[in-house]
């Protein structure tokens, strides 16, 4: 779970850093991806694992459309509130449209390819969760490699740091924004499809992930890609461990407590920058 948190949060972190906004509709992109996966399953009996690429494409397209139709319109204005405002509205729009199209029923994929659990000694590990974790880590690794090790990744960072200067380098910043949304769509799409394996789907499920992502992004350090991974894992682990140790009803409290303590001593987050 932690790895999935990390994946979702990395996408968020990237977009937020790049656009310098707080993105309220990130969770809803996860929802869209989950519905895509569900739709493919219910119409073509396509397994969620198989539908990962489609989910990526869909969430990327939605991200790009968001950028083209809305964000780039709003970017022109001097105030970044407009951007946040629009992502907030978009979140509502997406969720309610999904409710309209799919009804508010809880959906889930039946009999997916990975199901059940494997036992190692006395411990039963849920296969979908395991798959989710491995898949998320792989996807994360791919993104990481792209951002840190390729010229395009460098250009992406450059755009984030000084957009005008990036233009003067001959970087097509508009493309970079689209690239950012694509990577974010990649993260979200993968996460959504992996989640569908074991999690239920309904129009408002994104909110849960959105909230956790915000916590993870802050914990990891705003704008730090590596931080998101570590923080995501920490949140997942702390949540599970404290569930065992001090009782499940309180499991979120240690998560937030960790978060607050980190904030006290490393206010910039684990790997945050200024």
């Amino acid at each position, binding site marked *: 779970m932690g790895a999935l948190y990390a994946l979702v949060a990395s996408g968020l972190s990237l977009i937020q850093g790049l656009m310098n906004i707080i993105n309220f509709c990130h969770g809803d992109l996860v929802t869209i991806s989950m519905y895509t996966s569900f739709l493919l399953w219910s119409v073509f009996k396509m397994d969620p694992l198989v539908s990962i690429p489609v989910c990526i494409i869909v969430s990327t397209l939605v991200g790009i459309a968001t950028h083209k139709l809305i964000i780039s319109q709003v970017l022109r204005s*001097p*105030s970044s509130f407009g951007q946040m405002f629009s992502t907030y509205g978009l979140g*509502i729009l997406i969720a309610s449209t999904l409710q*309209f199209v799919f009804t508010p029923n809880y959906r889930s994929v039946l009999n997916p390819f990975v199901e059940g659990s494997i036992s190692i000694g006395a411990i039963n590990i849920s296969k979908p969760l395991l798959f989710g974790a491995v898949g998320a880590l792989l996807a994360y690794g791919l993104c990481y490699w792209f951002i840190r090790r390729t010229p395009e990744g460098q250009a992406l960072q450059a755009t984030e740091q000084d957009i005008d200067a990036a233009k003067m380098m001959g970087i097509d910043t508009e493309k970079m924004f689209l690239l950012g949304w694509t990577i974010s769509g990649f993260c979200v799409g993968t996460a959504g499809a992996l989640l569908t394996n074991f999690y239920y789907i309904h129009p408002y499920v994104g909110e849960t992930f959105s909230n956790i992502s915000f916590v993870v*992004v802050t914990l990891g350090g*705003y704008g730090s890609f590596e931080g998101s991974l570590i923080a995501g894992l920490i949140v997942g682990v702390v949540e599970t461990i404290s569930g065992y140790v001090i009782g499940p009803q309180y499991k979120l*409290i240690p998560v*937030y407590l960790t*978060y607050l303590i980190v904030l006290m001593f490393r206010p910039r987050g684990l790997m945050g920058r200024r």
Partner: protein
Amino acid sequence: MKDNGKQLMNDTRKISRGMVFRVIGGLCLAIFLLSFPHIFTSNYLRNLAILTCMWAIGGQAWNVLSGYGSRYSMGHAIFFGLGAYSSAVLFTKYGISPWIGMIIGMLVSSSISVIVGFPTFKLTPAYYGMATLGFTFTLQAVFLNWRWVGDSRGVFMPLLRKSSILDFQFANNKTQYYYIVLFLLVLSYLLVYKVSKSKLGFYIRAMKEDELAAQSLGVDVMKNLQIVGIISASLASVAGTFYAQYMLYVDPMSVYNSITSNNFILSATLGGIATIAGPLIGAIIFIPTGELIRGWIGGSGKAFDQMLWGFVIILIAIYRPSGILGWFKEHAKFFSGISKWMKEPIVRSNHDNSRM
């Protein structure tokens, strides 16, 4: 020198004309607000007006810290909730008047504000935003499990059959609730107005632009941020107290959530951040629109209303990103009188630069 004199004269003339508009505008608004419950006798409209005022207070609370000031809060629900809970718990458990509860709520909120602010104020605004958002969920988790404050069940306040200012309850009479919330509204707006014109007001606006530069001019950034934080938290807490006493019920899920915070943010940004009238104007448009859309086409279970609402928000964001007041400012020629009144007197620039 000569030039200068002429300009000064010009200025005074402009101001005095602005003053006339201000006075007239202010009077009109005052008369309208005061007579609202008598013009609109429908209790539903009054109810909307009351809620609008409540959110407007919250919006203003957010505006002080995040509009004028530089820390973008995404979790003002924290203070709203603390205000609501303080008065509710004290009233039901110990019969303490909600008015005292309100003050205690302000104190509690202020202390939390200081505690949250201590590590995060040092950092960039985004951190504060994320921290407050995280803290909202923390408080939600804590209150859900805290028996003494009613855990997930929330706090039920007794429905008293007779009106009493002391108990903050008015049997079946919206008018009194309205005047109370209006009173609180006016009070909070006066406070913010004062602040915006004071030394503190100048300092926070400067800090918003550049903290290091402000520091080099002798501004104690931390102290000023903490003070603004306290003011902001207290105001949000007042809105929370009103909420609790008006609903007579508080529960963690509905106060400590991001919807509450977002209502503040949206009211203020829609109206125009860092303006006095902004949050009120934003709330006047934002809150009733949401309710009316739901009232008209909601209830189908098909979420049409929500779709429309989301759409409206996006349109507003695209076409009026600088807020309603920003739009007025852009068209300042037509509205010179009105916008004079809306702007702070000292800012005479026509350039809107509301980047955060």
